[in-house]
């Protein structure tokens, strides 16, 4: 992976470059829509003339709208003829009732001139920078100029730096020198692996004087398993991952295999295009593996509402729209949610385009069921073996198609009708608005069931009273009875089967239920979960039938772990998508088909109009947003702010990129030359001189660039919530390296979990599980782990595109007083004693080096020593306090260790420790 960067001696004349760029900028009189016209329109006109509102029938959002006749009968814009364009006339009037912008400050003469020239030149609409496909970008190599030598010529290490230098030169700024080795070590370790590098990697780097020492360090960090954990932490905010379902009841959800999938994908540097295809449409890949299915849990991280009395269709719809919004926000850097209610006020997206896009996600099997169906059933190896045998037997004795059906059913219990789709209830109701339940003489209806070729029913139900008889009628309560099924009392849910009389076509099924054993008219006798219409188990006359069928039922009933996944509806269960008028899901407008916004790259011609085709559209080299969004995000992770600061909005209302050419260069490189390798993208950035600069702030920079938009210094950013915990675990020397598995529960104060109708409790993990990395912490949406929330972690009810760092006293209180942190301080104190020698000065020095990799300065040492002595005097005089701070009686219960624990606690709170220098 080693990169070779030529370090040319480069000559540049600052003044000349500045002049040159000025000349370039004003070249010709061609007015640029995106950079010159659009800002004026967005600021002054669009709130009344575009998107939601088009006053006087005039909208500036799309060219065809703007050129149309307005309400007054006049044309606001006549391309080529500003004098006859009503817009220009109205901008220049004096009557305040007539002059535009209405009742606001008039435009300046320069602005009006510019608009006139633009109309004169044909009033062409341009596109926002981010909607234009990426193309190769020329690196602004400094040129030799009159033989003058630029002092910063040696500074640049790779292409990134030339873009940065270019802008610095324009602003008469010089870059900062490289940070010292220990600072760089800590910075790049935290950035790549989310925690300090282990001592072995650190020592190798610190002792390596060769010129490839840093690159070796970067390579070993990228190769570390800890890398995947760090970047997964980031992705979990985007995926709105949590271990609970959200909303009122906020019950547990087993979806951690998706988290583990991410870690593995990052660690093996799965190319970003595959990474997206699998998460959007892994289930639709030919020969999809379990892992491919698990990847689709990305969009099963939407919330499920188990609150009694909620309309399941409302929250199913809500989840679908969340998938649309998340896909755009997170993967395409676009705020699309406004388009849910109306055409985008600023960006060229139309109202119906939102629903065309929603149609890709609206045809999946999930329906806000309590169980979170569809679930991937995860069999152990021997069961998997049996499954393969069953499927092979079916294939050999019947058909490929039948085998596929059997496999899908065993793996997912799909495609089944959920009983919550029933309606028209009499003596019957959805139990807790979740499952169709029957009282005596119950009637209810299940609509639109395709019975063609079906003569068998497998269903899951619970019976509370023996003697129940369930009948299925075709289309009418007096219609033909196609099945009469006794429903016995069960202990819990049970899957069973029955033959049904064959029928063809779509039918409404009317269910009746009678049970004379039910004493009271209000007593329910049974409830249904799902119904799977099929054919009898195939190959009845073939040898081995009975054994295979038994095997089939064993697998079907097996209590196995599951993960929610995406599965599309079969054609017979197809769900149409309509525009929601003004975003209201109850008011359905025109029917739409799956499609992508017209402004972006066309949908790939040969791809199916489903999620898989959508994923192919996203990763198309013509898609202008996918690569830019990710490159911008990776930059943000490393520098604390994106090149375009608003990661969630690269559109016209987002903050424009500080270095657009650099962003485009990185993005293009990422998707072409580097073949979507995220590791390579990270490496390119961290190998740059820009990244390696010291973050020390000079008075000049403080004044000229207080927010480091020009990158004349390194980034100085507070650590993420996860890194603060992980670093403390490392410093204390207790981190449990174990990877994967269900969420763990480190110490949390009692009384945090109080969800209504939910008795789940936080049970602190033991046996070292409490010391696992933050990425494995159990995440409950309505009451997330408080110590991390305080440090700006997201509750993950919906996606969080970027966290905004704050600095509050509650953060100080957390790292000072949280028992979890005090426990780590104790272990850190023991470690200082073990590794630092007898002398307390040596111990503190050692501790400081463990924390920062470098030596402590005298004043800081004096301050910590003073604290030690104060503490020591107190503890010497008060044994009870020693006992309390150490947390019991053990070999550490002495005044020295107690005092050193206080020092360790202070050290975990240093600015230098919670910050990346």
């Amino acid at each position, binding site marked *: 992976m080693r990169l070779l960067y030529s370090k040319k001696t480069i000559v540049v004349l600052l003044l000349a470059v500045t002049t040159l760029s000025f000349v370039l900028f004003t070249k010709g009189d061609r007015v640029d829509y995106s*950079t*010159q016209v659009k800002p*004026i329109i967005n600021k002054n006109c669009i709130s009344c003339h575009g998107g939601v509102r088009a006053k006087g029938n005039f909208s500036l959002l799309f060219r065809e709208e703007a050129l149309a006749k307005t309400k007054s009968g006049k044309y606001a814009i006549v391309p080529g003829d500003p004098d006859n364009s009503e817009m220009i006339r109205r901008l220049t009037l004096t009557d305040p009732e007539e002059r535009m912008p209405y009742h606001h400050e008039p435009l300046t003469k320069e602005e009006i001139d510019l608009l006139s020239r633009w109309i004169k030149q044909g009033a062409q609409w341009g596109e926002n920078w981010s909607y234009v496909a990426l193309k190769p970008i020329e690196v602004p190599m400094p040129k030799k100029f009159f033989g003058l030598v630029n002092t910063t010529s040696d500074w640049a290490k790779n292409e990134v730096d030339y873009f940065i230098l270019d802008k610095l030169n324009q602003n008469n700024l010089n870059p900062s020198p490289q940070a010292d080795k220990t600072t760089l070590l800590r910075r790049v370790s935290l950035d790549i692996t989310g925690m300090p590098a282990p001592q072995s990697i650190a020592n190798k780097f610190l002792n390596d004087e060769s010129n490839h020492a840093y690159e070796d360090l970067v390579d070993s960090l990228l190769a570390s398993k800890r890398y995947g954990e760090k970047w997964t932490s980031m992705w979990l905010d985007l995926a709105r991952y949590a271990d609970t379902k959200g909303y*009122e009841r906020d019950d547990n959800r087993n979806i951690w295999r998706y988290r583990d999938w991410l870690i593995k994908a990052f660690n093996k540097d799965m190319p970003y295009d595959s990474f997206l295809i699998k998460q959007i449409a892994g289930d639709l890949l030919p020969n999809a593996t379990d892992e491919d299915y698990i990847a689709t849990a990305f969009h099963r991280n939407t919330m499920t*509402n188990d609150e009694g*009395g*909620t309309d399941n269709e409302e929250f199913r719809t809500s989840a679908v729209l969340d998938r649309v919004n998340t896909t755009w*926000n997170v993967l395409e850097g676009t*705020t699309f949610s*406004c388009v849910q209610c109306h055409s985008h*006020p*600023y960006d060229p997206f139309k109202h119906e385009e939102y629903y065309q896009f929603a149609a890709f996600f609206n045809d999946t099997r999930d329906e806000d069921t309590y169980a979170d169906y569809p679930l991937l059933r995860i069999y152990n190896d021997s069961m998997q073996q049996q499954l393969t045998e069953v499927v092979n037997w079916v294939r050999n004795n019947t058909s490929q198609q039948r085998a596929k059906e059997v496999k899908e059913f065993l793996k997912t219990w799909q495609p089944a009708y959920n009983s919550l789709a029933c309606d028209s209830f*009499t*003596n019957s109701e*959805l139990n807790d608005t979740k499952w169709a*339940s029957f*009282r005596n003489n119950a009637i209810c209806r299940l609509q639109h069931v395709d019975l063609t070729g079906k003569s068998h029913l497998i269903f899951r139900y619970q019976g509370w009273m023996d003697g129940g008889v369930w009948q299925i009628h075709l289309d009418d309560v007096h219609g033909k009875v196609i099945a009469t099924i006794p429903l016995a009392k069960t202990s819990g849910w049970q899957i069973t089967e029955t033959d049904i009389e064959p029928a063809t076509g779509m039918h409404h099924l009317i269910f009746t239920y009678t049970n004379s054993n039910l004493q009271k008219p*209000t007593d329910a006798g049974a409830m249904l979960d799902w119904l799977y219409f099929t054919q009898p188990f195939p190959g009845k006359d073939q040898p081995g039938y009975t054994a295979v069928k038994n095997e089939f039922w064993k697998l079907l009933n097996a209590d196995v772990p599951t993960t929610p996944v995406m599965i599309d509806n079969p054609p017979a269960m197809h769900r149409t998508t309509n525009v929601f008028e003004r975003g209201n899901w109850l008011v359905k407008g025109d029917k739409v088909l799956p499609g992508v916004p017209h402004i972006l790259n066309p949908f790939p011609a040969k791809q199916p109009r489903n999620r898989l085709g959508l994923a192919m559209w996203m990763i198309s080299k013509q898609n202008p947003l996918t690569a830019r969004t990710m490159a911008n995000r990776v930059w943000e992770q490393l520098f604390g702010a994106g090149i375009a600061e*608003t990661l969630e*909005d690269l559109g016209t209302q*987002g903050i424009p990129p500080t270095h657009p050419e650099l962003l485009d260069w990185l993005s293009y490189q990422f998707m072409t030359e580097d073949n979507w390798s995220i590791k390579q993208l990270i490496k390119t950035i961290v190998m740059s001189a820009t990244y390696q600069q010291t973050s020390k*702030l*000079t*008075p000049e920079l403080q004044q000229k660039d*207080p927010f480091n938009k020009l990158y004349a210094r390194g980034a*100085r950013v507070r650590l993420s919530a996860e890194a603060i915990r992980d670093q403390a675990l490392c410093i204390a020397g207790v981190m449990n390296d174990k990877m994967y598995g269900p969420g763990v529960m480190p110490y949390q104060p009692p*009384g945090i979990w*109080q969800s*209504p109708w939910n008795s789940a409790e936080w049970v602190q993990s033991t046996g070292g599980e409490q010391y696992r990395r933050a990425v494995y912490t159990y995440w409950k*949406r309505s*009451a997330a782990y*408080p*110590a991390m*929330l305080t440090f700006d972690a997201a509750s993950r*009810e*919906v996606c969080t595109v970027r966290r905004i760092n*704050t*600095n509050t*006293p*509650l*953060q100080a*209180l957390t790292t*000072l*007083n*949280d*028992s979890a942190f005090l426990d780590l301080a104790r272990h850190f104190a023991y470690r200082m004693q073990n590794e630092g020698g007898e002398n307390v000065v040596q111990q503190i020095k050692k501790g400081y080096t463990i924390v920062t990799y470098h030596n402590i300065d005298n004043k*800081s040492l004096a301050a*910590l020593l003073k604290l030690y002595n*104060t*503490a020591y005097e107190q503890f010497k005089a008060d044994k009870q*306090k020693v*006992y*309390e*701070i*150490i947390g019991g009686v053990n070999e550490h219960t002495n005044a020295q260790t*107690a005092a050193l624990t*206080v020092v360790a*606690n*202070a050290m975990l709170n240093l600015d230098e420790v919670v*910050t990346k220098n």
Partner: protein
Amino acid sequence: MTQQELHNQRLLREAEHAVLRMHTRRHFIKESAMGLGGLALATLFGCSQKKSASPIVFDPAHPLAPRQPPFLAKAKSVIYLHMAGAPSQLELFDYKPELAKMDGQLCPPSLLEGKRFAFIRGVPKMLGPQAKFAQHGESRAWVSENMPHLASIVDEISFLKAVSTDQFNHGPAQLLVHTGSPRLGRASLGSWVTYGLGTENENLPGFVVLTSGGKNPDAGKSVWGSGFLPSVYQGVQCRSEGDPVLFIKDPDGMSRDLRKASINAINEVNAEEYKQYNDPEILSRISQYEMAYKMQISVPEVMNINNEPQYIHDMYGTKPGQACLANNILLARKLVEKGVRFVQIFDWGWDSHGTDSSLAIDIGFINKCRQTDKAVTALILDLKQRGLLDETLVIWGGEFGRTPMMENREGKQNPYKGRDHHTEAFTIWMAGAGVKKGFSYGETDEIGYSAISGKVDCFDVQATILDQLGFDHEQFTYDFQGRPFRLTDVKGRVIEEILV
């Protein structure tokens, strides 16, 4: 605008931002016990002070600095008492003798057609008021026997009797009341207020949340979340059991002066760090640690109700040591007295469906009323006697109302008398700063089903609260995802009718 001009405009904005940062830091350095002033003052002199209160700039270094509202404010602080689960207006304030006559009759189809209910299925029966009503005070306000104490202070209160919502499930409806949207992701009322006004008392959070009833509200912590606003503006949950604020208590074995010594050591090392890096964020962290230390004293102090005189305990009906509503209401008074801007109270357990006795409208509901009645009455009287009622806005209500029909869950009779969720009309009352005394606005039809006059919705209530705090709800915005967001979305009308 040219690219260069755009750029210049941004630089100008950043410069203003920087000035503000420095201004707030100067404030801190003057107060700093660390004597760090000398370090930074040189860079601070020469900055012009900016007086204008708008627009609000988020200053990560001092996000809670007190700010003036853009308009004259009548209220300095707000106490919002939310009875989570939704109390029945028909057993409290909305007296409907006609409904009594219909008790036990089948519900007319006109009330059911085209309506969606959470649990009512088929045709339910009507349920007459399950409490006796009488008129009280000079305002002759109807209050039921369930609120005997409150009945004595109706002349301090403005009732809104025709509040409506469009959400009939608890979670979404609570979110709508507090964040202006039934979906997650928006900022709560209290966080908006803290964002706009900062906090008066830097040793206490600006937005405090107190919960009782044994459960968090249905919508979880999002009802006091900061949504798209910086997380520093989210409500800080204070608790009557355990640490009053998470992690506020020093670890066992750590004495106060040892904690002081350790914060001093941390800040001394940080000061060395600042010398090297010159990053103003370091100064900010130093001040946050100072503040944390002060909060460790001030929060437990204000959260301790034991020092209140006995007559106050009697007045509120407190139960020291328990997480109960009365304690929280007394705490609310203490907190606003100390300069906390927004106190949000949630009391869980008002969901009177009739599915068990604790949720029966004639059993459990009466117990809930007893828990709130005495304490909330005491709050109004106590604020008044301290001269705080004029500057404190008190709001009491739920997320929706209850149906005039008896609930028939899954189409069958519930074991106890109960009412389902009702969106079309319910009662919220307000008192204090700027609100008319002894007034009632809005009327419902003769069975309390729909509003017939003075209909308002959650957005109107939010607009009114912001108005009393000195904000125009249409102009009080935060830019997020490329557009300005406001609490009231595209709706909201200040309910001038109930304002003085």
